[in-house]
């Protein structure tokens, strides 16, 4: 049914609006297509990783430098807790993982999902708390500090916030409670032990609000401290029990068929992280802003021999059968080890 009318004035303005709406839609679609096509190199590598790496901004730097070196690969990072990151990789939705939980990493390898594990960096967790230090744990060894926090908590003097999710940080915290001889399952029922169930930043903010103690990775803690999000202070740092080791593992192309096509890209990326260039990025990150590296390059430390004690700790904590990656979990790994 055609519409012709002598009322030109009103028709025109309605037509105009209709046309401009159409124009807006076309522009939007064109922009979308343009934005989409702007980055379409040959390979898309998807790395699922921990929130602590993601939130500090390290990955942005890694991405930029890596893509400069290898412009044919586009690397994307998905930030999830360590557990979820592994599941995503098992489903083939990510091509490799970058995580910090040795026990679960071993299982990942043993179940056949991963190959070519490479330890790339380490740092230390910190136990942070309110300035007043109500539990009087400043400077104590970590396990003892936890025990004292529990005692103070039972006397209503102190509070503890736990990550409460499936992150590597949470796994570390739980193993520390275990080493201290305490049953985490029971602790959860007490009023002084709070569970955040959220990201590290959110957990830190909750600890700040409640004046509680919590375990954090150094990177997220320093970033939030400098943003003035929190005023918590470090009560306990360093020591073998606070060691935090980051490793990269590629999907096993033999087991996870859908990830087969990106195995080469995964290998290139892992090699990059282990290379002089990659290790330098880890070392430089945060140095200017915080005066220290947030992530200490492991391979550099290993090669230079500058800190044999920490290397020993890493090997005790995160090596399997005396190696970062036992032979049966290696695949086309020339040049990696």
């Amino acid at each position, binding site marked *: 049914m055609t519409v012709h009318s002598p009322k030109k004035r009103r028709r025109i303005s309605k037509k105009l609006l209709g046309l401009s709406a159409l124009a807006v839609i076309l522009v939007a679609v064109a922009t979308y297509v343009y934005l989409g096509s702007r980055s379409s190199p040959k390979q898309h590598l998807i790395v699922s990783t921990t929130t602590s790496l993601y939130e500090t901004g390290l990955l942005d730097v890694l991405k930029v430098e890596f893509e400069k070196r290898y412009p044919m690969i586009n690397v994307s990072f998905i930030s999830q807790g360590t557990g979820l990151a592994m599941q995503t990789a098992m*489903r083939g939705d990510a091509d490799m993982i970058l995580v910090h939980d040795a026990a679960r990493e071993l299982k990942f390898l043993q179940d056949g999902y991963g190959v070519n594990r490479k330890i790339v960096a380490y740092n230390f967790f910190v136990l942070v708390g309110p300035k007043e230090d109500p539990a009087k744990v400043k400077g104590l060894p970590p396990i003892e500090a936890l025990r004292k926090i529990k005692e103070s908590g039972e006397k209503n003097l102190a509070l503890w916030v736990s990550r409460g999710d499936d992150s590597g940080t949470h796994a570390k915290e739980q193993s520390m409670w275990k080493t201290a001889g305490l049953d985490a399952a029971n602790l959860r029922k007490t009023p002084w032990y709070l569970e955040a169930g959220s990201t590290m930043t959110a957990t830190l903010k909750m600890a700040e609000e409640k004046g509680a103690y919590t375990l954090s990775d150094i990177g997220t803690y320093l970033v939030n401290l400098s943003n003035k999000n929190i005023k918590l202070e470090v009560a306990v740092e360093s020591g073998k029990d606070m060691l935090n080791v980051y490793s990269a593992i590629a999907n096993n192309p033999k087991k996870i068929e859908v990830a087969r096509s990106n195995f080469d890209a995964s290998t290139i990326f892992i090699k990059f992280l282990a290379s002089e260039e990659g290790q330098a990025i880890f070392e430089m990150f945060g140095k200017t802003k915080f005066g220290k590296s947030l992530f200490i390059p492991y391979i550099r430390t290993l090669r230079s021999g500058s800190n044999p004690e920490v290397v020993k700790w890493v090997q005790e904590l995160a090596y399997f059968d005396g190696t970062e990656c036992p032979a049966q979990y290696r695949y086309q790994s020339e040049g990696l080890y």
Partner: protein
Amino acid sequence: MLGTILDAIQQALILILSGDQEVLAVTLRSISTSVLATSLSCIWGLPIAITMGLFSFRGKNLIRSLFNALLGIPTVALGLILYLLFSKSGPLGIFQLLYTPLGISIGQSVLITPILVSFASSAVESTDVEIKDLARTLGASDIQTGSIVIREALWGITLAVIASFNRAFAELGIAMMIGGNIRYVTRVLTTSIALETARGEIAFSIALAIILMAIVFAITGAINLLRKD
């Protein structure tokens, strides 16, 4: 407390006016994914809505109840279901929709189609029965009657489309689960706000939120101006 908020707003305005490239890209991506989502919904939703509005048929009430129920679906739940569907090891894995803007658009479209269908079919249905009778008594065929009813309901249908767009534009769950919030690829306004808030970057979050709401108000305002025409 108030000082912090005002401070943040001030920083936010500076950020917006400085024309940050990444913010611009994120905004455009938000708009284009939601426009595409709305367009997809119109393609498969409007015919259903118009059919429901114009005709009665067996099972109509069942379908209507179904769409009304889907109106209330939480985006995270839908996001999870779609995530499992789009996953490489899921049934739709070969289309490789996960972590892509197209995947977000399709996901959002699934989310907003019940809204579009419910509101648009209501608009058509509530067109005066008299209009149908009037068209018929002036000799219109069924098709001609149908099209005049649709024309009378056009305003209501437009509102339904706008409401659907706003829902897609402002939602987080699907964009996050299906898109993955990957920088330069699938990061949109809502996921950026979530990320920056999680990072403690309050000023940046507020800036993004202001942009988001400004766009929603602008669209709604423009439509209302059209109405007065």
